């Protein structure tokens, strides 16, 4: 997919990837072999009928194309932009064995953008209400999807969101240059047009508990609160000034618009030499945000090699084009401060990869050498974990691991009437898997309520 010139785009927050033109899309769609047993579909967490929508694009029936996608995916414009397609649909495409796989993600985005541009009427018919109500906690992809599916089925749905804007990570985490705000707004508008009410600034677990919600008359509750708590490395110096967790850094810039300080009141420190620790999407987003805030040099510090990088391929490439330097096999062991307690450097172990263990996984180990990276800002992006704020307010809710909610395949927890899905059930994962979980749980909630009657 074409992208904006790296030197130009480094200076603003406008979208980087440009999308396909009509001609390009049709040409790309023609490459699809229309396999009898499409492998791509097996790679898609929500099993979109990929050959069907591609063949619609090939026939220039773009409206049908998006209709096919919408049957499976509530957030096509988002997923077309942020799914890790190389590990999902495109990773399975048979063309990919010899050549480039069909650019399924780009085609999905094309169809969704076509819909937005042409304003294909997607006015949903107002569903007939069935007098039952469901509370959804969290307005990320899991919560929004569950809410939309339930509303379409006829439930009265209220979404409770802790922040002052809806969207979850899509709003406060993923930067505009990857996912423009208006796309999320459109999706949220769609959900509210179904009759869903979104209550902002509403921290469930503090204002009221889930028990209270059930007592108030909600027939079921869906928890989609994400995995929002930052993980620490627990190395010395993590609390020095100008060490940010990526979630704070990105929240300041995306949700609070700190890039436009002082027009907006929230500030963010603009580092000159920045080290971002980690190599997932969050790390790439933080690094590229630092570039846009004027950093002279941005490093990604990662303890493994390029083969293990969890970030989307496209983001890694874009980051490199924008001048971000990736230091592989480097593991920070101390953040060093100056006499005022500000970051001045990071001391790192140089690593090497071991031979694969029984599970076949190669682990990094210290090589015995270390080096010092002089920087004035450090952004920690080594992952997120469960936030206990809500879960600890629910008595007897069964959790696993670091505090994630235990659910069955349908999203049911051990407590009747309480369902969960998305990152809070799986640990930090993807937009599409959160969406899929929201959809499955919505169906399970529907049958739970029907059987309860």
């Amino acid at each position, binding site marked *: 997919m074409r992208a904006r010139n790296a030197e130009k785009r480094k200076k603003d927050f406008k979208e980087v990837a440009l999308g396909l033109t009509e001609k390009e899309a049709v040409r790309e769609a023609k490459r699809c072999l229309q396999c009898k047993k499409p492998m791509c579909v097996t790679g898609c967490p929500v099993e979109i009928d990929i050959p069907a929508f591609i063949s619609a694009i090939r026939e220039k029936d773009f409206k049908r194309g998006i209709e096919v996608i919408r049957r499976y995916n509530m957030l096509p414009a988002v997923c077309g932009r942020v799914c890790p397609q190389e590990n999902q649909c495109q990773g399975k495409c048979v063309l990919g064995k010899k050549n480039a796989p069909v650019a399924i993600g780009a085609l999905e985005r094309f169809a969704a953008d076509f819909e937005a541009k042409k304003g294909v009427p997607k006015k949903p018919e107002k569903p007939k209400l069935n007098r039952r109500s469901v509370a959804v906690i969290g307005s990320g992809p899991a919560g929004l999807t569950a809410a939309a599916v339930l509303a379409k089925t006829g439930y009265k749905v209220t979404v409770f969101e*802790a*922040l*002052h804007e809806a969207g979850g990570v899509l709003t*406060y985490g993923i930067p505009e240059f990857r996912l423009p705000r208006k796309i999320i707004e459109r999706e949220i508008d769609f959900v509210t047009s179904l009759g869903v009410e979104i209550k*902002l*600034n*509403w*921290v469930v677990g*503090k*204002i*009221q508990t889930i028990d209270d919600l059930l007592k108030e008359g909600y027939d079921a509750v869906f928890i989609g609160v994400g995995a*929002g*708590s*930052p993980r*620490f490395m627990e190395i010395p110096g*993590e*609390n020095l*000034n*100008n060490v*940010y*967790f990526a*979630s*704070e850094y990105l*929240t*300041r810039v995306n*949700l*609070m*618009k700190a890039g436009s*300080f*002082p*027009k*907006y*009141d*929230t*500030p963010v*420190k603009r580092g000159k030499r920045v080290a971002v620790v980690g190599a997932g999407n969050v790390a790439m987003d933080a690094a590229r945000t630092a570039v846009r805030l004027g950093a002279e040099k941005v490093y990604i510090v990662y303890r493994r090699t390029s083969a293990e990088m969890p970030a989307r391929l496209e983001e890694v490439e874009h980051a490199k084009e924008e001048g971000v330097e990736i230091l592989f096999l480097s593991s920070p062991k101390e953040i060093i401060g100056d006499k*005022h*307690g500000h970051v001045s450097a990071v001391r790192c172990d140089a690593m090497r990869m071991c031979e694969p263990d029984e599970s076949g996984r190669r682990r990094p180990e210290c090589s015995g050498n270390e080096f010092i990276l002089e920087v004035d800002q450090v952004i920690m992006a080594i992952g997120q974990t469960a*936030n*206990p*704020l809500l879960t600890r307010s629910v008595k007897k809710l069964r959790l696993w691991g670091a505090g994630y909610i235990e659910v069955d395949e349908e999203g049911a927890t051990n407590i009747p009437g309480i369902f969960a899905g998305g990152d809070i059930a799986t640990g930090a994962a993807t937009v599409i898997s959160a969406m899929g979980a929201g959809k499955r749980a919505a169906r399970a909630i529907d049958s739970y309520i029907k059987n309860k009657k």
Partner: protein
Amino acid sequence: MFRIIKKESVAMHVEEMVIHAPHIAGSAQAGNFIILRIHDTGERIPLTIADSDCDAGTITILFQKAGKTTEELASLKEGDSIRDIAGPLGHPTPLKRCGRAVLVGGGIGSATLFPILKALKKKRNRVTVILGARTSDLLVWEHKFGEIADKMWLVTDDGTSGKKGFVTDALNEVVENEKVDIVIAVGPIRMMQAVAELTRFHDIPAIVSLNPIMVEGTGMCGACRVSVGGKTKFACVDGPEFDAHEVDFEEIARRLAFYKREEMESLHKYRTSCKGRCRGK
């Protein structure tokens, strides 16, 4: 939108504001705070819930005009609205029957202490309150405390009200003359640090309420992290109250000053803008 029901100046640079927020009023407990954002371009700032009235559906906040956002907040009038308020946030103060408690407040710290005082009295504790300020005009709510506390001490640096000196002088006198089971201190960092040292010396348990920089206030960003007993804690969800003897005060002081330059810039811009001139007075 949250409507301002009442606004009043209660001390020099200190405003009291009663806001309509029934769902928060209904669940607020001593020690809880809110995060508010005045308007679309505003920042999110934490403020203690100084009082709440479940029947009227209102919460009361006290704030000192110290930066752009608080100055702008002070420029709002009764009937105006605040865009966003999230709360109640933070752990409620663990309150039980503990015997004799001493509450020590510096300046605006009174806001946090008042609900704690009410709750402690409800549990039939004997409570001594020590309120301090630089000068008498800066004392906040001393009469309201006086109505409930078993014993009141007022202390000012310049002696314009009550005793001349620091709150720690008064606290020292109290603990030397009677048995104290717990001290709860809220105020400027250096004051809380001094209380921590004094109570450690006398071997009295002490709690302080910390006020680090926050963003969302629900444990998701880590902006509010503090070191307590050598461990990193998030003040918004693990606190804001912590064992005074375990807190790393130097670190908080340093982290609180991190955005000084930006705060000055923002305030300067606000004061020199039209908004500052026509609304700020």
